[in-house]
């Protein structure tokens, strides 16, 4: 899902959660790291996919709304599919 094109310096990270002034960010390798919220695009929210473009000495970060929506729709479809066919009522295990 997460791709990284090293030669262009473009990568995508995902906001796993926001805790006060920190954002827990899922890196391209799937690990998480805490970043200062202030270092991320203004208005960033949990679940947003952030596109990071490094060209020369410049870094641009932006919320990739299209990619955010695409991933959310895909993930939701997968989860809905798993939850379909669930039995009703109380369960005995």
């Amino acid at each position, binding site marked *: 899902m997460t791709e990284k094109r090293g030669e262009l*310096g473009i990568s995508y990270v*995902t906001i796993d959660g926001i805790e006060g002034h920190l954002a827990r960010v899922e890196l391209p390798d799937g690990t998480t790291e805490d970043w200062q919220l202030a270092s991320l695009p203004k208005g960033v929210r949990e679940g947003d996919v952030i596109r990071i473009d490094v060209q020369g000495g410049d870094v641009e970060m932006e919320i990739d709304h299209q990619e955010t929506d695409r991933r959310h729709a895909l993930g939701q479809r997968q*989860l809905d599919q798993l939850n379909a066919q669930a039995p009703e009522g109380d369960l005995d*295990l």
Partner: protein
Amino acid sequence: MRRVLVLAALLGGMTVAQPAPAGVLTIRFLDVGQGDAVLITAPEGQSLLYDGGRSEKRMTELLGQYSVKSLAIVAASHGDADHITGLTPAVQEFKPKFFLNNGIAANTQTFSKLTAAVGTAGTQGLLASDRVINLGSVKVTILPPPPGMPKTDQNLNSVGLLIEYGTFRALMTGDSETAETAGWLKKYPASKLGPINVYKSIHHGARNGDNPAWLKAVRPSNVVIGVGPNNYGHPTSEALALYKSVGASIYRTDLNGTVTVTVQPGGKYALVTEKGTGTVPQTRPTPPAPSPARPPSSVTYPSCAAVRAAGKAPLLAGQPGYSRKLDRDGDGRACE
């Protein structure tokens, strides 16, 4: 009613590495570092894993350490990585019958990996709803998110569990925030929510989790905080003061290791810690840890600009992301 036996544990280490004993309910608040994972095993042997912590490796170790042989059901309180990462190896190994969830997908790879594992294992997804799961003779009541929670917020859609065995009652409610607990207070009578013998602290003792109105209803005798080194200041002095104000004994997985509760038929219970004897509420905030542990080799930065953007400059040799190509003068300090 209060036939309670609390053994704060000088037995540390003697019982914690044992499999759950038959004939009693065993609840283990697992030491997974900063995160939550609670393993519940019925007297008849069926197990439920509520959250899995932030590390696949750690969860795999713990499942082995406690000789877990099967899981009937895994539950994700919500989709944050510090709650679900360890569920993936648990699902892969034990192929549980059900995967209880809040019905809201997270965008992360971690969540995708879990749902893929659930699908591969043939595990049935189970959207949280008002129902009871009888885990053998243990009654597990699901507390689904109350109406009106915004679907874009995982914390506010945490799934709670009320566990009852005889007169014993335990309650866990993920990373809920005040809006969700207020919704539950509106939805359920106070007699359903409390008193609670053993209570999992909301959101690792965050400032926006437990609140006076909620705890007044829950009336916990013992609070267990799932917490490890973190940058967020968990548990906060506010949360600790709140637990103290309701007279609860406080246990912390960062200080006490895994906390194990065993409940006899009828409801008498004992609480045992892996190390230490539980903690008294603190009056000063815990200083935040410098940074979470993670594999040093897992981060690469394409340039010093990226290092600075991440707020990591300068990088010292040995730190995650340090590389010689970023350290032009070779002095062990990159991106100075």
